[in-house]
């Protein structure tokens, strides 16, 4: 992990030192230069892992509730009569507790996986059409002569909004009619990795 980061930092430093070259870069190469930012790559990698974990948690929640229900039945066969007596607050507390527990597990898993970090690109996180939109936006900003810092800030802002959208889609897909496009959306392997 450390030496990989060192290599990335070295490349970044080398490129930043050659400011004179940067002035004459073509758009495509400037885009590659922008994407070659170790901090952004690390952020994207963390984001991807968290989203995979979140998706897992969402898919697991209904199952967990059933398991708890049946465990309660096995431990105390007479508890079924008591179940209707439970208030809405009890279920809310149970749901909150489960959510916190699963998110903690997700973070622990993330910390463990982070050790094997070897770079990450947008194509591994979002669907292909989302990255196409983001790249088009980046090109547009470049044509408008935005500074590199501003482009980076705007990209992170849009990535943040995409994450919010992704989370909303995952939650809405629980009750929306069919799951065909959900499978398409979640199948990371089908998304073509960005050719950069």
């Amino acid at each position, binding site marked *: 992990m450390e030496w990989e980061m060192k290599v990335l930092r070295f490349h970044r430093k080398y490129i930043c030192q050659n400011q004179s070259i940067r002035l004459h870069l073509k758009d495509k190469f400037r885009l590659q230069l922008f994407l070659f930012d170790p901090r952004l790559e690390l952020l994207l990698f963390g984001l991807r892992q968290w989203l995979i974990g979140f998706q897992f948690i969402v898919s697991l929640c209904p199952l967990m509730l059933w398991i708890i229900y049946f465990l309660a039945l096995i431990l105390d066969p007479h508890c079924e009569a008591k179940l209707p007596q439970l208030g809405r607050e009890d279920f809310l507390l149970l749901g909150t507790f489960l959510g916190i527990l699963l998110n903690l597990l997700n973070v622990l898993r993330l910390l463990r996986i982070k050790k094997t970090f070897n770079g990450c690109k947008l194509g591994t996180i979002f669907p292909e059409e989302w990255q*196409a*939109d983001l790249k*088009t936006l*980046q090109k547009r900003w470049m044509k408008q002569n935005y500074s590199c810092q501003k482009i980076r800030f705007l990209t992170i802002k*849009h990535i943040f909004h*995409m994450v919010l*959208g992704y989370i909303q889609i995952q939650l809405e897909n629980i009750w*929306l009619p069919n799951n065909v*496009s959900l499978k398409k959306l979640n199948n990371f392997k089908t998304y073509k990795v960005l050719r950069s």
Partner: protein
Amino acid sequence: MSDNKKKQIKLSALDEDVLTVLLGRELYGLEILDQLNLDRPDELMFSSLYPALNRLEKKGFVSWKWGDEHDSSGGARRKYYKVNGAGKAALSEIQQYRAALAQRSAQGHTTFVGI
């Protein structure tokens, strides 16, 4: 369509806007966003657009096809959305409802003024 088969159409204001923008043409995500943001007081972001497109797709109101690879999109393909028959019918029904609502409101106003 019989009452049993008739499904309740649920469209949010944003869904309706997206359907209106897509009426009669094929657009990809960013183009839809640009069209929606033209005269919008509060800027719409991807966090609202993509879930809306997903909802419409799941409900069967829009269909999509992959576009060609573009240099401007970094080699990634765009997804072009268009409204299908069900989407047009749903939009028409909602618009009729809104027109009737406006008409009733105007009539109510006239009555109130008359009193």
